[in-house]
């Protein structure tokens, strides 16, 4: 109960969470469980979890040592991403020696976009700076989840590979890590990371995402102090044009009323996209949560999710949702938002940037993306928004690398993790001056070659390892202002849900229940209820079947993990 209170309160762990090892380890301790203790639940199997007891976690996690080369215009508030309005003119070198020793390494990372030709001028420039040959093979992000299992089962993984946390469960990742991946604990744990100052400047929460069964395996990318799954965006210019101005959405009913006002299919304008993915925020449900009596439940069993389904079904039935979204054709979603066919959409935090403004303004010169502040469904009380892990992007090294190779890769990783304002960061994100970009008053401007290679390869290297997120939009300071102030205002509503940042390895016998297929597959039961093709009763019976076929045992297993956490937390 005591623990429940601390999880439900957004503030206590959040404020102290940024910064120091002690704070982070303390927060993490709340969600840590000792490995190999038999779980109390009827699951029976020992609960092997991602992180160990507080003390052990302290020994595994690299020591955090902050580094900020330039003072941000929008400093971090409650963990929000620091933002810069201008680009530093005096870039700082953070790595004095060439990190590589001439080694050559293969890597695979996902890429959403056009895959540039191999060994292009940008790759060559990066490899030259690294002093090693890191040949990254970007793979189509859209089917990345299906290329991972054969790579892992066939033991065909490259030297360095990106495995997003959300695609790890089907790989039974705890075992994958032990069998196939290099243990980085001996190289990075505690003060050992001091050899690599840029890596040490990544938040401990980012590193925690790479811990499996008490060992550190992964490098974090895109680590953020404040990370939520979705934001609710809208077209500020369209609402202006309709005379609505900037609406204050205080509850889920306000949102429905606004939708009604905006919706006009005859003019080919629908109020919203399929925003069901966003609704867990106003309705406040998380994968694992405690009910009113303090019992552990899954979000599927919560009352809130049923209310959310009903709300979405009502919006779809009223015709407020774009037909393509109702049909599950999400591919054109962004184009439909740009063209004004959809006014309100849910999307990730990364959607609000310069590239978006550029593309949107190409479609409509008044294009302005804005985001509603968080609100609670009922409209009463402060919003409570379950946070996502500090990062979902983690890369791993192949077990067959020798210690000296691992050390070379770590030096390379240290280069790749150089922060905003450094010479290295500039190279990795914009390429070479004169070749890929020209420096203008507002920051680096990519030229044609830069757009083709550096521009499309940015995520390729960043998915290996990258510094903590910062926000900067060359040429679009107004975008930075809006997005950064939104984050500063809203970060305080985030709280860490149960098992936050804990990589739990479930026993094999529970893995199929853990996949939660009825609720997660392409056309799942929630999706069907929202479209009026299934009823709440159908939903309940699907839930009952899932619970019968392993769901209840899975819950018992997690109850065991929770009990361990409580023991350790109070110890």
């Amino acid at each position, binding site marked *: 109960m005591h623990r429940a209170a601390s999880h439900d309160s957004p503030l206590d762990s959040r404020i102290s969470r940024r910064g120091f090892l002690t704070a982070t380890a303390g927060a993490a301790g709340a969600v840590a469980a000792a490995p190999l203790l038999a779980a109390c639940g009827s699951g029976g199997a020992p609960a092997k979890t991602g992180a160990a007891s507080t003390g052990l976690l302290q020994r595994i996690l690299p020591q955090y040592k902050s580094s900020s080369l330039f003072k941000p215009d929008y400093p971090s508030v409650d963990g929000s991403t620091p933002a810069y309005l201008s680009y530093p003119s005096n870039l700082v070198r953070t790595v004095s020696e060439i990190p590589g020793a001439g080694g050559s390494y293969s890597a695979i990372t996902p890429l959403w976009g056009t895959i540039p030709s191999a060994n292009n001028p940008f790759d060559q420039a990066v490899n030259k700076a690294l002093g090693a040959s890191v040949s990254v093979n970007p793979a189509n992000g859209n089917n990345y*989840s*299906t290329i991972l*299992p054969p790579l*892992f*089962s066939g033991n065909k993984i490259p030297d360095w590979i990106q495995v997003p946390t959300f695609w790890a*469960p*089907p*790989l*039974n990742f705890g*075992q*994958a890590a032990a*069998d*196939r991946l290099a243990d980085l604990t001996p190289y990075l744990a505690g003060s050992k990371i001091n050899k690599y100052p840029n890596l040490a400047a990544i938040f401990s929460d980012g590193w925690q995402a790479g811990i499996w069964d008490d060992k550190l395996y992964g490098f974090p990318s895109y680590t953020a102090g404040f990370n939520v799954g979705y934001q609710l965006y809208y077209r500020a210019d369209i609402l202006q044009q309709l005379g609505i101005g900037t609406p204050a959405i205080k509850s889920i009913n306000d949102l429905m009323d606004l939708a009604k006002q905006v919706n006009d*299919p*005859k003019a*080919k304008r*629908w109020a919203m996209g399929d925003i069901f993915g966003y609704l867990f925020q106003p309705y406040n449900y998380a994968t694992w949560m405690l009910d009113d009596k303090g019992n552990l439940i899954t979000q599927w069993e919560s009352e809130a999710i049923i209310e959310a389904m009903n709300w979405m079904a009502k919006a779809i039935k009223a*015709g407020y949702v*774009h*037909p*393509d979204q*109702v*049909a*599950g*054709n999400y591919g054109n979603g962004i184009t439909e938002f740009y063209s004004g*066919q959809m006014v309100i959409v849910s999307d990730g935090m990364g959607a609000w940037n310069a590239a978006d403004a550029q593309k949107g303004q190409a479609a409509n010169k008044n294009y302005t993306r804005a985001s509603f502040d968080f609100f609670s469904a009922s409209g009463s009380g402060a919003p409570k928004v379950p946070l996502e892990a500090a990062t979902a992007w983690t890369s791993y090294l192949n077990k067959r690398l020798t210690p000296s190779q691992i050390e070379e890769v770590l030096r390379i990783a240290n280069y790749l993790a150089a922060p905003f304002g450094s010479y290295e960061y500039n190279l990795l994100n914009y390429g070479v001056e004169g070749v890929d970009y020209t420096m203008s008053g507002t920051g680096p401007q990519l030229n044609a070659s830069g757009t083709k290679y550096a521009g499309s390869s940015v995520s390729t290297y960043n998915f290996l390892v990258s510094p903590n997120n910062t926000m900067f939009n060359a040429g679009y300071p107004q975008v930075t202002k809006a997005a950064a102030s939104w984050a500063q205002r809203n970060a305080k509503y985030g709280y860490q849900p149960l098992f936050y940042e804990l990589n739990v390895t479930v026993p*094999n016998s529970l*893995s*199929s229940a853990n*996949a939660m*297929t009825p609720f*997660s*597959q*392409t*056309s799942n039961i929630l*999706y*069907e209820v929202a*479209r009026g*093709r*299934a009823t709440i009763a159908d939903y309940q019976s699907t839930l009952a*079947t899932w619970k019968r076929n392993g769901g209840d045992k899975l819950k018992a297993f997690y109850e065991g993990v929770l009990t361990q956490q409580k023991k350790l937390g109070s110890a």
Partner: protein
Amino acid sequence: MTRAAATGVAGTATPVGTLAVGAIGVAGTRPRWRVRLRRDRALLVMCVPALVLLGVFGYAPMLGLVMAFQDYDLYDGILHSPWVGLANFQQLFTDPGFLHAFWNTLMLFSVQLVLFFPVPIALAILLDSLMSRRIRTFVQAVVTLPHFFSFVLVVTIFNQVFGGAGALDTFLRSHGVTSPFDFMTDPGTFKFLVTSQLIWKEAGWSMIVYLAALAAISSELHEAAAVDGAGYWRRLVHITLPGLKGITVLLLILNLGYALTFGFEQMLIQLTAVGPGAAQVITTFSFENGIVAGNYSYGAAAGLFLGATSVILILGANKVAHLFGEDGLYRK
């Protein structure tokens, strides 16, 4: 080199040779068998690439099917994963999701078979009756082209026209219809939607075989019948259609073989539009449970059931064809 290659050929080709002998019904003695081998050597060599292809991509992967009887673990592989007997199949046949997918498969296939099958035949007869060679070639090119489109494109084009934000509904809305029918998301009419997509995409392509069969019917038969006073319909019923019977039966049987595996892509793309109630078939079920959810054994069990049922269907249909005195897949 030459000898090694030749031995390889002989080794691979043996079953084919035996089959040929058996089929013709000659009690082959050993020397004659060798003579035949020497005589057909060139043909047998030409079979090798196809056989290798079949072996590597058709038969070798089938070994993986044993995982249907295991609790397959990604890291233990098929050699070390624990055996579970028929447990996966037991779960399969009590899973309402699977049974529904099975029913959908049979239902969608039947509707497609009944509505699609006659279209290429009719199209071929129609085209065959055109006199102008130029128009014929033009029409043939137009109706064949969609075959080369992927289903992604076909569904997109249908969506642009019939979807809720498509051309038709936009037109209707601008003319006062407030909530026009959305053909793309209605589960009730889904079977007709997929059939029309199939007809648009494949009818022209399937027609080519029938055109060839029509060309093989001697024009003397038509002339003689016409002289005897037979009109167009009479000639159609007594000459044209009987001439197409053999090829029709063959294609029908081959189609049955695909009955349970058809339209994977087409269904997967539209699964979200109409929901699993209407569009979940065994192949998509196997994909979602096996590949997406990582429950490989379960997916493989569904796949194996599908393969076995297809073989039974195709052999059964062949048997029926033989009973009616047709050639079927091979001459008896």
